[in-house]
């Protein structure tokens, strides 16, 4: 007993030594583990083999056959048509072939000159039965959807995304990092903060394993995007633990709600018909959130974008972003219709007006970029001019309405060192702290940026770099880049343009947030007070980030990859295979 207490005493005396040794090791170990983990995640995201799904074959009467690889396919003379028929009587965009969740097919006339015939009858929209003869610009063709059996075979032939072993290994790696970080903060932290530290890191670990188990149950094996998101959330937790330790639980709750949102959005997108219904709801909610904020919102730091509900502050404009993605996404048959585009422009103008009233410059910029992404993806030749004008008006209204607030920030941009005690205070402190941290950081709890306003949200990139090194800051940025590159790459394979637009807009929003947060912090761009996805302290932002991730998941058609995509080969036989 005596020996034990002696040993304990020795241990207590040597505390400084082992804390110092631990911190000394951790500053290299954490980046090393991160690089390893991210490399393992990025590799399948960035270099996965793009294997298209084949849903049907289109036979032309001259014997050529086309593989139909999407659920929405444009037939036309234009080179970029999915089925390109270079024949003078075929319009540039002639018709759209659409597949539905139940496996049925429809052909829609896309305002072609000569129209379409099905079994010799002119139609503008027509559900296709087997062996129906479609005539496009005088050319006859037959659609042969794949059978349930073929679909099953296809699902077996395509490479399965991810594998259980790698995913579990990644999760173990991430859990190890969470343990190491947790211990680092507890060694240097105050005892009264221990429960918060444990709950923060422990909570993320539990969430990630639960999600993984859920995926295993529904036979989904791709977990890279989620791993990257949990990785960023873990780093965010490290930032919050050092700056506002008592807020870790709040952030954890937000992560939980974020995961539920992720599920809900994913579920809504899983079925295209459901997604279209959700779209109306989301469109209304998008405006609703902004109206509520305008009516009942609180103004903090010049922007009226906070809502106080039962002791919690939420930023409804974050959730509005999510709704905007829904509103912007659209299926191909509708994309061919100009009226839809005009409606969307109108919707954007209304949103823009509300944002102007709210004086929230950062959010307005994000909406603007989202709008540009959607507009570009949607518009063919038609709307370009109108869109450009709207963009200009959008920007103009923001500029005029928010000028005094924004001008102050623009005035100090690239001049922060001339006024380090007032206007340049946040950025100079952030940059000095990044430099103080070097490439590998000062160690857990040793940062001093915590005394600066918004160190854990607007300046999260700097707080992370200060304690864990610029290497980690750069890795955090790469995480967003990897997610976005994946979204672009997978867009080619998405079943519907609804998913392409959704995924690309979600990626665009994440990128814009990362651009404004990271580059704003280091004075490459003006500081706009925008959160870094998953990393920054902020519940609404966390929820929004997970919701956006669901849109990217919905475009991920790798075999067994995504819960937001129906498994192929599961289709029930409606009629016996002949």
């Amino acid at each position, binding site marked *: 007993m005596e020996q034990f207490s002696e040993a304990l005493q020795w241990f207590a005396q040597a505390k400084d*030594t082992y804390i*110092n040794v631990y911190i*000394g090791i951790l*500053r290299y170990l954490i980046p090393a583990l991160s690089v390893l983990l991210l490399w393992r995640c990025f590799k399948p995201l960035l270099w996965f083999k793009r294997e298209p799904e084949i849903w049907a074959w289109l036979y032309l009467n001259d014997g050529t056959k086309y593989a139909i690889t999407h659920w*929405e*396919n*444009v037939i036309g003379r234009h080179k*970029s*048509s*999915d089925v390109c028929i270079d024949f003078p009587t075929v319009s540039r965009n002639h018709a759209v072939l659409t597949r539905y969740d139940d496996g049925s097919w429809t052909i829609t006339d896309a305002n072609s000159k000569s129209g379409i015939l099905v079994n010799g009858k002119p139609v503008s929209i027509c559900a296709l039965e087997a062996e129906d003869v479609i005539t496009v610009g005088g050319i006859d063709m037959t659609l042969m959807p794949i059978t349930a059996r073929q679909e099953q075979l296809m699902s077996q032939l395509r490479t399965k995304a991810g594998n259980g072993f790698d995913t579990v290994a990644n999760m173990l790696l991430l859990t190890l990092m969470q343990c190491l970080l947790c211990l680092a903060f507890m060694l240097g932290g105050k005892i009264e903060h221990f429960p918060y530290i444990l709950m923060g890191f422990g909570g993320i670990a539990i969430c990630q394993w639960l999600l993984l188990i859920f995926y295993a149950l529904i036979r989904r094996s791709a977990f890279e995007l989620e791993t990257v998101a949990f990785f960023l959330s873990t780093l965010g937790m490290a930032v919050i633990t050092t700056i506002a330790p008592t807020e870790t639980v709040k952030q954890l709750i937000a992560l939980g709600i974020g995961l539920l949102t992720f599920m809900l959005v994913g579920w809504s997108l899983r079925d295209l018909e459901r997604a279209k219904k959700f779209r109306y709801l989301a469109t209304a909610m998008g405006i609703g959130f902004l109206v509520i904020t305008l009516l009942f919102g609180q103004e903090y730091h010049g922007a009226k974008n906070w809502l106080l509900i039962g002791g919690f502050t939420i930023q409804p404009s974050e959730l509005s972003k999510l709704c905007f993605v829904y509103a912007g996404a659209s299926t*191909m048959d509708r*994309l061919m219709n100009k009226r839809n585009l005009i409606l969307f422009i109108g919707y954007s103008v209304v949103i823009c007006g509300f944002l102007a009233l709210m004086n929230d410059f950062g959010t307005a910029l994000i909406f603007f*970029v989202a709008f540009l*992404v959607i507009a*570009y*993806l*949607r518009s063919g030749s038609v709307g370009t001019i109108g869109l450009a004008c709207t963009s200009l008006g959008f920007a103009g209204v923001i500029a005029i309405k928010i000028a005094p607030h924004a001008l102050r920030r623009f005035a100090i941009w690239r001049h922060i*060192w001339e006024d*380090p*005690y007032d206007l340049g205070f946040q950025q100079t402190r952030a940059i*000095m*702290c*990044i*430099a*103080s*941290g*070097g*490439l*590998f*950081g*000062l*160690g857990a709890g040793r940062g*001093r940026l915590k*005394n*600066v306003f918004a160190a854990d949200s607007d300046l999260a990139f700097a707080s992370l770099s200060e304690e864990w*090194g*610029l290497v980690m800051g*750069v890795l955090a*940025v790469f995480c*967003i*880049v990897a997610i*976005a*590159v994946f*979204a*672009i790459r997978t*867009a*080619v394979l*998405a079943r519907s343009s609804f998913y*392409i*637009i959704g995924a*690309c807009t979600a*990626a*665009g929003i994440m*990128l*814009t947030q*990362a651009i404004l947060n*990271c*580059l704003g912090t*280091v004075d*490459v761009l003006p500081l706009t007070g925008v959160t870094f996805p998953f990393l920054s302290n902020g519940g609404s932002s966390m929820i929004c980030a997970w919701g956006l991730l669901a849109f990217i998941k919905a475009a991920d058609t790798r075999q067994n990859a995504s819960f937001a995509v129906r498994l192929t080969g599961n289709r029930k036989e409606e009629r016996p295979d002949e």
Partner: protein
Amino acid sequence: MNRVSRRASAVFLLIAILVGGLGFFLYEYFTLADQWVVSAGSPHIYNSTNIGCGQVVDRSGLMLLDLTATRVYAENETVRKATLHWLGDREGRISAPAVSTYAKEMTGYDMVNGLYSYGNAAGQAVLTLSSEIQKTALEALGDRKGTIGVYNYKTGEILCAVTSPVYDPDQVPDIEGDTTDRYEGIYLNRFTQSTYVPGSIFKAVTTAAALECVPDIQEMTFKCSGVYAYGKDKVTCATAHGKQSLKTAMANSCNCAYAQIVEKIGKENMIRYVEQFQVMESVKFDGITTAQGNYDVTNAAAVQLAWSGIGQHTDLVNPCRFMTFMGAIAGGGKAAEPYVVSQVSLEEEITYTAETTETLRIMSAETAEILQTYMRNNVQTVYGTGNFPGLTVCAKSGTSQLGGDEKDNAMFAGFVTDEQYPLAFIVVVEHGGFGSSTCVPILSKVLASCKAVLDAA
């Protein structure tokens, strides 16, 4: 679909902005981070504008300031007071750039590790100041305002530089609420940041100019009847000194003789030599730029020119600069530039060592030598060699008139010519009255203390 998915590549533009912007920042980081770290207000380095990390010790290794945990000053109250203006206060009201300048060396910053050091190792800056001499000097000044500076003109080390008034940083008095003027300019380091009307100590400058440009000046004699008139205006002496040579005029500080000497030198040459002797220029060392002096006779009438040569008119000098000028006379026409930080180390590694740099030659060796004998003569005939036992002191006193009802400032500047005590000094006692009688007793104590410290080393 192809069309829409092809358009998806537009998102690469945003990726390019993010990666490009980050790349630009990284480029800035690798080229500028060492400057950022030590920029004003850097949270890991400064406590407001002053150094906020490491330790500062005096030349004997006595702890003056420990910043490893909190801001702890020296144990002794007088030492705390006497060194406060070199270390900076807790609130950042007193700017002390000397130590802050070596923040990078103190923290051991490097691009890869930033400010990380195992166990938060602290750097140490060694000052050339001696807390012993500082203490003696501040006690000698008492509650009078002013400054005392002593430096080694061969190496450049500043052994003593006190300023008064001061306060104890551990027991900060109610300075804002005070209605008397006893705290006037308390946040100022008078040695580096103030300028004073030099009065007769400026005659050393005029004498040097005369020796440089007026042939046979040593053979000339000047008559003093107590008044030297320029029409209505006049230059006066307290008594009529009678026939004066350059040497005796300096010893007696005869204004009438100097009015005539300035006439011989002429306005152009006065301007030229004041410039050549650099007495109005800032001294730059350890991140400090001292206040600039003033010598402006462009529109001066003859009587004003005469007064300018006597250290009145609009003349202003900075104590540190004038001390360096004294060093240059002692050093035969040039001297070492003063400095206050001698070494910075981090753990075992020495990251900075001060090097002696010499001023330009500002006067010929002959002029310097003659001035030395004149100023030695001043001590022998007027100030009394007995005040400085064991030291060959050469000096010039000054009683600078401030105009109005203000009591004169007492000034005293000079040097020691002994090989083992190469010291130049300046003493300023604001409203101290007569130069030599006020300053000599103070200097006597300070130089004795300096001698003891140098002997001990």
